[in-house]
Structures are given as C-alpha cells and as structure tokens.
C-alpha cells in the first residue's frame, strides 16, 4: 500500500470520478470517470473543444473541477496546488524557461524539491533524449524538435506518478512527428512512468497508446486498446473519427445461429450477433474500407458465407502505390469506400460494375439513430490547428 507521501510512481493509478468542468454556461467536461493504470501509455483522443485539454489541466491542477474528484493512488488531489502534485506536464508550447539554459531547465523541478543528485539526474535525462551535448545552450538556440525533447526531459527527470503530454508533437513537422512518436513510446517503455497523452491525431494515439479514450462533447465515447476501438467501434463518432468507416442503414431480419441476418437495401447480409451494439431493429452497420473486396460482377459464390452486395459502380480510383482507394456508388445512391492493397491485380477502371464482398465477421452494428456523419474528418490532407 502506498502512503500519500510516497514520491515514486509504483502502483499509483490515476482515477477520475465523475469530474465535471463548467466555464460559465459551457459544459467542457461532463461527469467524466476514468481509471488509468499505473505504468500505462494512455491517450485522450478527440477533436478540438472536446474537453480533453481541460481534463488534462484538471489533472495537472491548472484548473479546478466544478464537480467530482481526482485521485492519484490513495491521495485525493482534486484541489491540490499544482506544485504539490506528483504530476508533471509536457506543454504544447513546451514553456521552456528562456532565461535558463537547458541544464537548468531540466534541473528546475529537482532543485525545487531539494534533490541531492541534481547533476547526475539531469545528465541522465538529457542522455535519454540525446541532448547531453547541448546542456549549456539556451532554449532559443534549439530547434523545435530539440525543444520538445528538453520539455520531455524536464518532466521525466522528476519521475512523476503521472506524466501529462498536451499535444506535445503538434508544433513539429510531419516527418519529425513520426520519429518522435516512436521515440516517445520507446522512452515511456524505458522509464515505465504513466503517460497521459492528449491529442487530436488518431494516428498518433494509435501508434503510441496502450489504451485510448475517445472524447467527444466533454464525454468519453469509448475506451479500449487501439485494436478494439478500430475493429469494434461502439458509436458512429468513434467509427468515423478513428480511421474511416462505411456506414450503411440496415434492419434486423432474424437470426441464424451465432449470426444476425440483416436486410440492407433489399440484400440479405449477415454479421456476428455479438457485434451488435444496439437492441433496436434499425441499425447502422459498418465495414472498414480495407475489409471489402471488389469482385467482378456476378462472380460465382464460392460456397463460403461472404456478404455480397452487387450492383456497385466504381466512380473513382486513386492509386497511392501501396493501395488503391476506390469510391463505389451503390444502387441506393450511397458511395462506399474500398481500399485494395496493391498485390499486383491492377486497378479497376472507373465505370466498371462490381460486387462488394467481405467476411461477415468484419461487420459491426451500431444504433440506427446515430448520426452517420459524426466524427468524419474533413480536409484529411490539411493539418488541423491544434486547439485545446
């Protein structure tokens, strides 16, 4: 059992219990409950304004919750001052002290706590982020990526129970960001601290985190491993925000053993009954684009129980090298997306009539009253501005 005075991170889970934050009339965080196990890499993923940064700031002590409580291990830190919490933050803007050199920036927290081995610990932390030789430079003399590492070292060196990362890679260019993602994950494994990472970038969250909580409108939509969230989203928001989904309206027509029989615009399809997330008859069924296969129209059923939807017409084919991304117009007017890996079969020309085929186990069933456009990210190629 850890005593509240214990300064190490061993076995101290971060627990948020019905935490609510209002700014005047605006409800930023809505009765959020969350347990983050000690030593895990946890991502809070959501679009701008979903309340993820506010949640982070409440854990750091920079905002006070309107309601609810926050515990680290057995210690109630809900209203504790930031400097009294075993929590450190890597700020989005890095917030390095411009008047101190890199060494003193990293040493700042240790000196405040009267550490006896400042020099060794700082040198160790700078070694970890591979900046040992720049210890006597000022922050302004460093590149963005280097400043980011200093901010990380400055937080890690204190061995907090919880390390908060507020969009730490948001200011870096794409290439550097990918590199830092791998490094961050590596460092987290090495130091074994609890990382809570706030981001709007789903790829970043998936690459690094053990567990992702997808936030929307101040609430957690779904929480789980990247694989779980991707393969079995429980809401349309998660289905669209995490990767891309084809969502089609369907009605439950009966059951057959483990399977649920569906009526989809006149076609009889099947999906595992266990993947149905709603008791309603009307569902939105989803399939990820890479799970669908384009088959020549009227291909003979090979006996296995594939879902087949005939009558699609290819309207667009974008060859990206690794794969080809197709848009297929269905008889009921909806356009579905299909990613075909480049295994040498060539590109299906637009205008071709095709059947869509996929394994029923890849189908998930969501509540039919959900908004099928929720969480769709526009302007994929444009980097969203990282706002709280």
């Amino acid at each position, binding site marked *: 059992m850890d005593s509240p005075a214990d300064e190490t991170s061993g076995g101290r889970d971060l627990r948020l219990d019905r935490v609510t934050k209002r700014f005047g009339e605006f409800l930023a965080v809505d009765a959020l409950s969350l347990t983050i196990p000690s030593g895990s890499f946890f991502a809070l993923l959501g679009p701008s304004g979903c309340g993820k940064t506010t949640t982070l700031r409440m854990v750091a*002590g920079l905002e006070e919750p309107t309601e609810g409580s926050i515990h680290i291990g057995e210690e109630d830190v809900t209203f504790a*001052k930031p400097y009294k919490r075993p929590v450190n933050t890597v*700020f989005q803007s890095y917030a390095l*002290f*411009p*008047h101190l050199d890199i060494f003193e920036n990293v040493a700042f*927290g240790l000196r405040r706590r009267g550490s006896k081995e400042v020099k060794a610990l700082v040198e160790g932390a700078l070694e970890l982020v591979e900046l040992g030789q720049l210890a006597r430079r000022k922050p302004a003399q460093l590149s963005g990526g280097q400043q980011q590492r200093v901010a990380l070292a400055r937080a890690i060196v204190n061995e907090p129970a919880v390390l908060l990362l507020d969009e730490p890679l948001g200011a870096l260019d794409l290439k550097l960001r990918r590199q830092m993602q791998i490094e961050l994950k590596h460092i987290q494994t090495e130091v074994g601290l609890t990382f809570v990472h706030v981001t709007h970038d789903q790829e970043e969250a998936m690459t690094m985190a053990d567990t992702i909580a997808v936030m929307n409108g101040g609430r957690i939509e779904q929480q789980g491993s990247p694989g779980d969230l991707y393969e079995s989203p429980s809401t349309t928001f998660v289905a669209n925000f995490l990767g891309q989904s084809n969502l089609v309206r369907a009605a439950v027509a009966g059951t057959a053993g483990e399977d649920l029989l569906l009526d989809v615009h006149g076609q009889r399809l099947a999906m595992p009954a266990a993947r149905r997330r709603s008791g309603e008859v009307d569902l939105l069924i989803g399939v990820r684009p890479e799970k669908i296969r384009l088959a020549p129209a009227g291909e003979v059923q090979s006996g296995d129980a594939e879902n087949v939807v005939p009558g699609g017409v290819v309207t667009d084919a974008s060859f990206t090298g690794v794969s080809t991304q197709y848009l297929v117009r269905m008889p009921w007017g909806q356009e579905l997306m299909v990613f075909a890996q480049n295994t040498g079969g060539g590109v299906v020309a637009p205008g071709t009539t095709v059947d869509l085929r996929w394994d029923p186990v890849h189908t998930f069933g969501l509540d039919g009253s959900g908004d099928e456009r929720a969480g769709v990210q526009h302007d994929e190629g444009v980097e969203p501005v990282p706002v709280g």
Partner: protein
Amino acid sequence: MSVVQGIGLGERRQSGGTPPPEPGRSGRRRATPYLLLLPGIAWLVVFFAVPIVTLFSTSTQTRPDGAEIGVYRQTFRLANYVDSLSEYAVVFGRSFLYALIATLAALLISYPLAYAIAFKAGRWRNVLLVLVVAPFFVSFLLRTVAWKQILADEAWVADALRFLHVLGPQDHIINSAPAVVIGITYNFLPFMILPIYASLERVDPRLIEAAGDLYANGLTALRRVTVPLSMPGIVAGTLLTFIPAAGDYINSALLGNRDTTMVGNVIDARFLRVVDYPTAAVLSVTLMVSILVLVGIYIRRAGTEELV
C-alpha cells in the same frame, strides 16, 4: 543644390534597376544616410556637445581680482574640484542616499502594481494604465505642492500618525527628510511602473504555469521565473527613477528643510542666486560623472548588457 541632385540621381538609378554605379557616384549615395543624420547631429552639437564643453570649461574658471560679480576667466584651476567637493561631500552623499531609498521604495510599490495590471487586471488593464499616467496631466511642481498640503501639520496624515504615537506632539512630517523621500518616490513612480509593466506583459503566463507544474510555489515561481524575466523592466525603471531623483531639487526645496539640501539645490543656488558659475559647474560635472559610473556598475552587475 548639388546635394539634392545627388540624392535624386541615386534614387532614379535604384528604381531603374541599372547595374551598380561607378565609384564616383556611389560615393554620393553612401553619403545619403549621413546627410539624413545631419539635423540630429546638428541638434546634438548645439544642445549637448557645446554645453558640455562649456560646462567643463566653466568648472575650471576663476574670478579675477577686482572683477565684477559673474565675470570669470579660464585659468584651468583643477583645485576648484577639490574645494567644492570637500565642501559639498555630505550633500552628494545625501542626494544619492535619498535617490537610492526613493528608488527602492518605488520598486517595492511598482512591482506588485505592475504585476497586478499585467496579470490580474483583465479588462481594467487599460483603465489602470491611464490612471498610472494621469498625474502627468498636472505639473510636477503642483503635484509636489499638493504633497506639502497632504503632509502638513494640520492634515490627516500627521493627525493619524500622532494618534498612533508614531509622531510626537511636537514632531512634523513636512520639512523633513522622510517628506523629501516620499515626494521623490511619488513623483517618479510612473517611470518605474511603466517599464516594469511593459516587461511583465511580455512574460508568457504559461511559463508561470510550468513553474507551478515543476514544484515551484507562488513565491518561488515569482523569484525564479517572473522576476528574472522582467529584469529588463526593473533595470530600466530603477535607472529612470534613480538618475533624475539624484539630481532633483524641487522635492527638497518644497518638502524639506536646510538639512535636507540635495546637490540639485546647491547647483540651483550657485548658478542662479550666488552667480558662482565655477562651483555650480564643478558640482554638475561631478554629479554627471558619478551617475554614469554608478549606472555602469549597476548594469554590469544586473547582467543586462543588452539593455544599453
């Protein structure tokens, strides 16, 4: 005339995008910035360089035997300095002491005020800044006269202090050293507040948050982050207060007594009433040089060479 033509040629040449001009004409173009500096240089020569030289030269003059009052001849008598300084050493010491105390008092008042305006005032920020500058709408002299009223024997400040037994029944605040220091502090307060505000306003509040996140309590964050980052403002404010305060004579004249005489009062009296130009010049030169030396040491110690 030829100067104007030269400039005109240069400009036409530039806009035409022709190859670099031959040496003879480029010389005229290189002269252009200096020609633009001419009015400023002329101003400095007439109103700074010439008076300084005159002042230095006056400081070593002597009055010929039997000459009229106010008539002095240049005799390069450096002993003027020894004579005057031995007579007025105490006055010099007092001036710098008053200026130092007033500067420190102004700093203690200004820093929290500037901090509050920069970080806590919200939408009242501009109103408060106007209020800081508002006293300038009244003349320096009138404001000091007002303090004469505030600190007078029959005014409430003295009454309150007597009531609290801080002040004896026969004691005064007016016409005393504290009154002079209070007057100087008050008069130069805006010169302290504004530069400190300007540098605090540029401090990123996220750095203060980061300090809190790194186990610094409010006071430590102030000492380790906010104050160091506002050092340029503190240095500028203390200089803008100390330099004029050391040479001030109005506060001492209006709020002090014979024992609070400052260098400024002596210079004023020697120049304008006694018509003893050499002594006044000696004191002026000494004041100037000692302030330069003190400021030089201070800036070096404060480690903000980039300020000058």
